[in-house]
């Protein structure tokens, strides 16, 4: 490999120097079958006010390069934060050595055709109101005001409001002996995570209420705050935390369960998203994140849910957390139905998993950062809206419960037996929301739970959300994913309350 090339321009001062792609492309080698260089530069700012005190404001600049090499049937990677000329050169050589060392002993013999298409393209978050229109002082003032509105009662023993912004610029260049050309992809995402919480206590009873459990976030600018009503939410969050202190425990028994979008996000994630990941089905995750109750023969015929269930992989939703144009293997991303009218059609797997299984997949081979290789991940995984208003969903329930905001999640390694808990719930009696109850939980089995879906909300309750904390992979990776859903109604669910 050549050693007379320029270093990658450092992004200090501005994420994503414009000549990064050109500098990276110069390192592409035709001495190997295929290689890619993925440069990631990420800048973030975190501001938090807790109990009237501004917590230390923190900033972060992260930057590094992942080199992937396919050669002689082997696959190797090397990642470095050393973006100097010597650093890139050593990393390229290291990735090639790994490829040569693994030739003939990998799970796949050489790159699939779809993995060596050197793609070209660009993606950029659509920002309506950039953060540059505000100052740090503005952001501190906003959070100070919001947090002060949470301290409404002496029984509020802890409260906080925070705002995190993450700007990520990713550049992928690829080419090599087997590639018809050299490709370059640039993607720029701007993500906002607003949050707040109020902790209320009375004796040994503590109740916590939050702003969507951390799910009210997405790509964009200041407008993300407006989308979720961040500026107006604090009084309700605090009042409900206090209300829960004196509320009775949730009842125990089988009943109708109406889930708000900020609980549906978890239900979708754990019992649809993870089971449909092709790398889990292939067994890659058996030592850590687990396997799946879904088997390859189910695709095309398995009745995953009731006919009301429609689930899409949708990287095109404006403002959703994991919208993008290409995955980290460089595969163009497009909307696909995974489940249509309740029937399982397609899995969540990128080019390599598709080649290994012979199944259709999606462009979801993603890495959490420059220092981890791509694996099959959820991106935007959404339950499509139905035709019921929220009131119509409530009206059809004789005895049931409405739960909001996830606070507990547990599921077996096949993603089948689950138990989830929520922050806040209201009983439904004779078609009306009645009594607030605390410590609500429910349990079920994925393989049967979705078949009891008896009502799907329309666009009025459809909410576009996301989570930054999906963990998986060896070495471990935590990544942001998007979920959107309306309120959904399930029949005959085992519900329970807390111990106190």
């Amino acid at each position, binding site marked *: 490999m050549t050693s007379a090339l320029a270093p990658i321009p450092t992004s200090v001062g501005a994420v994503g120097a414009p000549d990064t792609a050109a500098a990276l492309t110069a390192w592409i080698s035709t001495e190997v079958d295929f290689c890619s260089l993925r440069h990631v530069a990420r800048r973030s700012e975190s501001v938090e006010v807790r109990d009237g005190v501004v917590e230390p404001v*923190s*900033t972060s600049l992260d930057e590094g390069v992942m080199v992937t090499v396919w050669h002689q049937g082997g696959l190797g990677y090397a990642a470095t934060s050393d973006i100097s000329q010597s650093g890139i050169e050593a990393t390229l050589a290291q990735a090639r050595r790994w490829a040569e060392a693994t030739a003939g002993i990998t799970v796949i013999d050489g790159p699939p055709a779809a993995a060596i298409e050197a793609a070209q393209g660009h993606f950029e978050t659509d920002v309506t109101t950039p953060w540059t229109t505000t100052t740090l002082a503005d952001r501190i003032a906003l959070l100070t005001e919001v947090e002060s509105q949470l301290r409404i009662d002496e029984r509020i023993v802890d409260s906080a409001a925070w705002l995190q912004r993450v700007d990520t610029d990713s550049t992928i260049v690829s080419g090599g002996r087997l590639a018809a050309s050299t490709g370059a992809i640039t993607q720029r995402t701007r993500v906002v995570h607003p949050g707040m919480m109020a902790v209320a206590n009375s004796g040994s009873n503590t109740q916590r209420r939050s702003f969507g459990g951390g799910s009210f976030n997405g790509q964009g600018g200041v407008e993300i705050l407006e989308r979720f009503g961040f500026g107006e939410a604090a009084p309700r969050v605090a009042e409900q935390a206090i209300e829960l202190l004196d509320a009775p425990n949730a009842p125990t028994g089988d009943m109708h369960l109406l889930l708000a979008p900020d609980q549906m996000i978890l239900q979708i994630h754990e019992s649809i998203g993870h089971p449909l990941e092709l790398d889990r089905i*292939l067994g890659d995750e058996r030592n850590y994140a687990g396997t799946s109750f879904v088997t390859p023969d189910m695709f095309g015929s398995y009745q995953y849910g009731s006919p009301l269930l429609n689930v899409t992989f949708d990287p095109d939703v404006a403002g959703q957390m994991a919208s993008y144009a290409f995955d980290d293997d460089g595969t163009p991303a497009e909307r696909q139905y995974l489940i249509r009218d309740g029937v399982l059609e397609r899995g969540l797997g990128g080019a390599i998993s598709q080649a290994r299984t012979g199944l259709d997949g999606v462009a979801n081979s993603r890495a959490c950062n420059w220092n981890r290789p791509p694996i099959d991940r959820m991106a935007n995984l959404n339950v499509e809206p139905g035709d019921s208003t929220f009131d119509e969903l409530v009206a059809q329930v004789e005895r049931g419960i409405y739960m909001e905001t996830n606070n507990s999640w547990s599921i077996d390694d096949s993603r089948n037996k689950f138990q989830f808990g929520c922050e806040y719930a209201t009983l439904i009696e004779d078609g009306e929301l009645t009594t607030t109850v605390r410590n609500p939980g429910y349990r079920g089995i994925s393989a049967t739970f979705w078949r009891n879906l008896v009502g799907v909300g329309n666009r009025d309750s459809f909410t576009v959300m996301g989570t930054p904390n999906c963990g998986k992979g060896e*070495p471990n990776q935590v990544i942001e994913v998007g979920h959107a859903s309306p309120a959904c109604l399930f029949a005959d669910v085992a519900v329970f309350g807390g111990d106190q």
Partner: protein
Amino acid sequence: MTAVEPAVAPNPQDHFTALVDWACSQIQASETLLATYTGEDSDFVRLNGGAVRQAGSVRQRSLSLDLIEGSRHADGDIRLSGDMAIDQARVAELLDQLREIRAVVPEDPYLLYATDDASSERIDRRAIPATDEALAAITAAGSGHDLVGIFAAGDTFSGFANSLGQRNWFQTATFNFDWCFYLRADKAAKNTYAGFEWNDSAFGTKVDWSTQQLEALKREPVELSPDNYRTYLAPAAVRELTDMLAWDGFGLKAHRTKSSPLLRMATDGATMAPGLTITEATATGTAPNFSDTGFARPDSVTLIDGGQLADQLVSPRSGKEFGVETNGANTWEAPSSLAVAPGDLAATDALERLDTGLFVGNLWYLNFSDRAACRTTGMTRFATFWVEGGEVVAPVNVLRFDDTIYRVLGDNLEALTDDAEVLLDPGTYHQRSTDSTTVPGALVSEMSFTL
């Protein structure tokens, strides 16, 4: 597999020392600078079905700076290149940025940092195997088995420096092979082999144990109904329970804000079993003995003493807020070297004492089902067996438990084994973990399984 020589990297301690010395030279007389350096040079080889799924290396270094003037300060993190010219430019830019932020933020009433010089150095680099040599041994051991897992090896390091002259350095070279032999579906023998020196005999013993467990898994599994069962929890399963307690159970802030899952121990006099003692055992653990604010950590902090709530982990910030002396805890006030004192049940007698009930090798995906009551749910995973008359009868299909830890490690805890096992954390989020847990097995008279 042919040898993969590591990429040559600058000595991280030299890089740390030169960079923080330079950074400290860039501050003004009225300023104080705190600097925390972390990094790793690691190899990762991921296996599925005995074949390599992904193999590669990660080289990374980071620096966190806290720039203080009076009671005003700001934090910032940068990724380091290792190239001094690039890194000095990044540090200079960050210092400028922190000064701009500091001019905006109010005074911080909870700012606390070390002013006594507690410099230290701990370097433990013994004989971790070359990755290709370890993989040769691993693939040989896995021959004929459905082997899945990850081998990780290399150096991890962290340093602390301040402009008052304190310097701390911690560096270890370790390996961690975390693997399963799979039988079918979700039935597998899970094991780990980790440490500072590779020993073929020790590894062979681990492999033999997994092979024997795999044989037991071949029996027809039984499906148990939800019920209360007498249960033996192997050390790896006990670790999952202590990990839950570590989630806000031992931190001062969580206790003072009434958010601790051990709230009832503080408010209602709830207790665990008299034989249960839990410590943050820094002296015998594998994590750094200094905090990211430069405070030295004591050798041991007793968290549960004979079933009674004892001390808390106190970060400098919580210490200042609540008027308690810090013991060098991290920001999250979670233990890094948790140890449960062993009991008096001979580990070899555990099945006999269990008599009839469940042998649980691993638990999985725990969470609180009622946090304030320390009620916890989770799944059995990998190898769980039904035992009758002290003999393994059959593997058990996965079960969900939902019970309070006050019962499991309290009223219903019959015994702890006399052989606490040291489990090095295989975690690799962001970078390889240096945490460890030392736990015995636990015999529980009754545990509630719900699904």
